[in-house]
């Protein structure tokens, strides 16, 4: 049922014994995880299961207390968040993460700009960035934000901000995407939209997402890891985990009264 035996070259990101202790309690406890290249992998579990902590550990926004993380065979356990972003592992945020005072175009361009390497060239005009304008506009178009190209991102509606965030993330051409509750706070219509967007971008990419909306998870993901109380409860396809007694119990509760 688990994939730890999978061919290593198929595994893009893997964690072994991942543990995070906060003052007084263990949020993530010895989690082993393998994300297969090209898959959509969902991390689910009831509230307080440690999903977000786990997510932050994988994206290096938190330092693990123990365990190792490898990306494409490289040990990234001690690398910084910016470093792993450069290795092609890019995350999104639960709350819409745009640059509110930059325009939609500029938001996307910030990501494209990364391709130029470090932008310490303060003496150059930003006109050099106009080389990216077409591509940025295309990315914006992909998420349907073309009419808002020159609006400050801070003035977009919530759903559009999320779309912009995804466009920005994609602009990095990441090998792997980590989406933190992409549907959080979405209106129903937007959910379908973002779902379609995720499916679209999953081509040639690996996606790991934390998501509450189980219908979305069921619909999108190839593989699911269920966490409960900081530990891996079950892994497998949606059908496999949804029929797992322990998972049902974790979600719905044990012992019908």
């Amino acid at each position, binding site marked *: 049922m688990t994939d730890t035996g999978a061919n290593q070259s198929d595994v893009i990101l893997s964690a072994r014994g991942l543990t995070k202790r906060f003052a007084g309690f263990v949020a993530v406890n010895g989690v082993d995880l393998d994300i297969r290249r090209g898959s959509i992998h969902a991390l689910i579990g009831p509230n307080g299961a440690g999903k977000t902590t786990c997510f932050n550990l994988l994206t290096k926004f938190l330092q693990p207390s123990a365990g190792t993380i490898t990306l494409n065979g490289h040990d990234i356990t001690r690398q*910084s968040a*910016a470093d792993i*972003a450069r290795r092609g592992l890019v*995350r999104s945020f639960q709350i*819409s993460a745009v640059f509110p*005072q930059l325009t939609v175009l500029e938001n996307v361009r910030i990501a494209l700009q*990364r391709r130029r390497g470090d932008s310490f060239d303060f003496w150059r005009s930003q006109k050099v960035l106009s080389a990216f304008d077409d591509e940025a506009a295309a990315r914006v178009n992909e998420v349907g934000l073309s009419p808002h190209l020159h609006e400050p991102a801070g003035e977009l509606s919530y759903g559009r901000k999320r779309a912009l965030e995804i466009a920005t993330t994609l602009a990095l051409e990441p090998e792997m995407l980590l989406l933190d509750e992409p549907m959080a706070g979405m209106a129903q219509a937007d959910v379908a939209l973002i779902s379609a967007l995720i499916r679209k971008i999953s081509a040639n990419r690996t996606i790991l997402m934390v998501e509450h909306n189980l219908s979305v998870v069921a619909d999108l993901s190839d593989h699911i890891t269920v966490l409960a109380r900081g530990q891996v409860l079950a892994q497998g396809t949606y059908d496999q985990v949804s029929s797992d007694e322990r998972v049902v119990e974790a979600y719905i509760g044990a012992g019908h009264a």
Partner: protein
Amino acid sequence: MTTQSETGLVESAAVAPTVGTPRHHIIIFFTLLVLLLLAPFVLYPVFVMKVLCFALFASALNLLLGFGGLLSFGHAAFFGSASYVAAHAAKVWGLNPEIAILLGVGAAALLGLGIGALAIRRQGIYFAMVTLAFAQMVYFIAVQAPFTGGEDGIQAVPRGRLFGLIDLTSDLTLYFVVLAIVVAALLGIYRIIHSPFGQVLKAIRDNEPRSISLGYKVDRYKLAVFVMSATLAGLAGATKAIVFQLSSLTDVYWSMSGEVVLMTLLGGMGTVFGPLVGAAAIVTMENYLAGFGAWVTVIQGVIFVASVMLFREGIVGVLAKWLKKPL
């Protein structure tokens, strides 16, 4: 990790920026330049030079505060130390003014690198306080070091000859040199703001975690902008030392740091032209109100309070909102 537009230090001017150098910026720059070229024939040149120096100082702080999102409460350290070094170089070593100014700027840059490397490890209030603490140490050194002349400062600094050729004793000649320096520096700041680097800077200011997640090493950017800001503040201080032929403890005292924050805040942080307006307003006010003694302090305080309570975007920020154009 809230979006910082609601709570951040720099409020969105709610203006749709355009791509490239906006035409109205060129017009404003050109108008300003013409006015400044005419100014010394109408106004007292030394006064305008003072305004220019402080406009540069405030713009340097604004680069850090308005575009880097970092409030330094110790910028007088760079302004003052550059002023001391330039004054010393010109007076004691007898160097040409341009070399003296360069040395002053170099000193400010080095100091900025040292203080910046330590200060950027902290954020928000802590960042402000660390910079203040270091500035107090610089002040202490300025009081103690023999070459600074204690409370007398370094006086009777010769204006000297530019490149050994142009005599700067005349206020008018000096004026155009200072104007050239300040305009060049302001254009430089404008370029920094609108460079690829400036774009990343604004991104970091708007949303630091997101910038990290896009692969930017934000600490390096913060340090870079800190050093740039310190360097430009140093340029302002060194130029002021040559203009007034004097560098004194006032230049390194913490109230100078407060004053330049006030200029930036009043003019509009995060705007291009705000610091110029703020500096001109404060310097003019100090000059006109000098006779009112302690009332100057009261009026400054009232402006501080009013800026915070009523128009956080500053004069230019409010104008920009009104005109719906970034200024």
